[in-house]
């Protein structure tokens, strides 16, 4: 009852009617748009990393090292720092540094290298004998990447993508705190700055539910395509 004391009774808070639905949508849009970009760019980057690496189809140790270092730099910068330092780039890409559309830029830059590493790890698990067997059939590298590496590693890649999306949800909350909108912004602006305990609680519960749905869906998809 302490948490509901500030602005009247629980659920009678105007924020629930006015801001909450939009915040939920913003979080979902941010995650979905970023997820799409991460899948489109992170997957090829992960495939490239694996195949340039020592056990890949086209080992290039120098190129591999450069790409690998770039990916690790991308992964090691704290997200909040990355987001602020990317503001000029974000302005250039979407015309503004505010709103969920703008948040997609730093979120993608942060998550692409993360997902790429997970893809690389999943591909490394594919037995070299399978690749060799298909190479023996006279297959092109393109065919091997798509039909053997990615297809055989797909359960692991889906698992990695789920982990990436869940990490993205927590990043969106951070992005929200500095003008990105969404549940994170709501929690910060109302729950923290205006001492609305009920808003804070609602945001936390909703974030937990979104993460749970994502994880459950990811596990299901992964299991359905896993024939091992």
């Amino acid at each position, binding site marked *: 009852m302490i948490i509901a004391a500030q602005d009247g009774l629980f659920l009678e808070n105007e924020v629930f009617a006015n801001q909450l639905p939009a915040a939920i949508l913003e979080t979902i849009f941010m995650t979905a748009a970023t997820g799409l970009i991460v899948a489109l760019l992170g997957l090829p980057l992960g495939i490239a990393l694996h195949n340039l690496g020592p056990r890949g189809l086209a080992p290039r140790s120098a190129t591999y090292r450069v790409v690998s270092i770039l990916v690790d730099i991308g992964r090691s910068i704290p997200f909040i720092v990355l987001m602020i330092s990317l503001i000029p780039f974000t302005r250039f890409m979407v015309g503004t540094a505010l709103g969920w559309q703008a948040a997609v830029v730093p979120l993608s830059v942060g998550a692409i290298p993360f997902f790429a590493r997970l893809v690389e790890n999943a591909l490394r698990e594919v037995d070299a004998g399978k690749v060799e*067997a298909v190479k023996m*059939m006279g297959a092109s590298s393109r065919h091997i990447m798509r039909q053997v590496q990615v297809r055989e590693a797909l359960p692991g890649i889906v698992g990695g993508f789920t982990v990436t999306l869940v990490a993205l949800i927590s990043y969106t909350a951070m992005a929200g705190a500095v003008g990105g909108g969404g549940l994170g912004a709501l929690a910060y602006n109302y729950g923290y700055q205006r001492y609305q305990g009920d808003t804070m609680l609602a945001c936390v519960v909703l974030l937990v539910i979104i993460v749970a749905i994502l994880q459950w869906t990811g596990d299901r998809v992964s299991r359905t*395509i896993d024939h091992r």
Partner: protein
Amino acid sequence: MIELTQVRKVFPGGVTALDGVDLTIPDGEIHGIVGRSGAGKSTLIRCLTGLDSATSGSITIDGVDLGRVRGAELMTARRSIGMVFQHVNLLDSRTAAKNIAHPLEIAGVPAAARKRRVDELLELVGLADRAESYPAQLSGGQKQRVGIARALAAEPRVLLCDEPTSALDAATTRQILELIRELRDRLGITVVIITHEMGVVREACDAVSLLTEGSIERTGRLLDVISDTSTPLSKELIALPPISAMEPGETLVEVLVTAGSRLADVGRLFSLLAEHGVEAPVEAGTVETIQGAQIGRLHLRPDDAATAEGIRRVLVEQGVHAEVTTAAQVRAFADEHQAADAEEENQ
């Protein structure tokens, strides 16, 4: 026909894996290649498949020099060779039918023709009812059958088998070898089986080559190689348990009955020895019928050296190979083998 001429493979770092391999395998033959680990078997198979190239020498399959073709031509050449692996290497994400169809997809065969060919192959390897099963749902032997069907999908002239039965139990091994022989008879393909199991060679091969330290030490028709007592391969092909401890001065007669002997039957040997009054207890022995010929190997332990010599004379007269071995010789042979085994273990 597969022809290898002076094939050498030297790895960066100076390790010579193949040191002048010469080998000719005629069409339709099942040829076994045996050798200890480290003898160069894996390197040889990688060169035969074009996955690795020889440092010098030439490998031609039906007239195509694998070392000279590149790019698209190499891919076509690879399609003329079907490969069967020890660990099968099926794709877990594909059903048995889809795994078999894979080489056909790569070769650009249209879907309808692909389907027909896959049904035919499933029938051929006796798995018509498992088309929609995933590899995880198949037994080891069934997986290898799918592996063989996949290797045959693009109608190769050559089937290369790398330790095809090493991961299988004895009964399944026999079925798979039977299948390979049957396929050779029906399709007329040339088969190369790389193995360390002498039983595989005895059961399935027409000819055999022994690879030692990167070159072919002995090659020939199976029966010829078994009958040739001048190479250790003969003893390894028809193996007997190790000779038990011998006291100094004791003797052993090693006997090999082959198709060339004038004995009608190994059993006749004992009555013959009895007739000459030179009988001896049998310490170990094995009799097998290989490709219609009876092969017998025996270790006899006569009481004294004179009897041993008597046995030898009687048998040699009948065209049977017999050798008198003393305790010292047996020990020297055992030591040498132990050293070789220890060396292999270290690798």
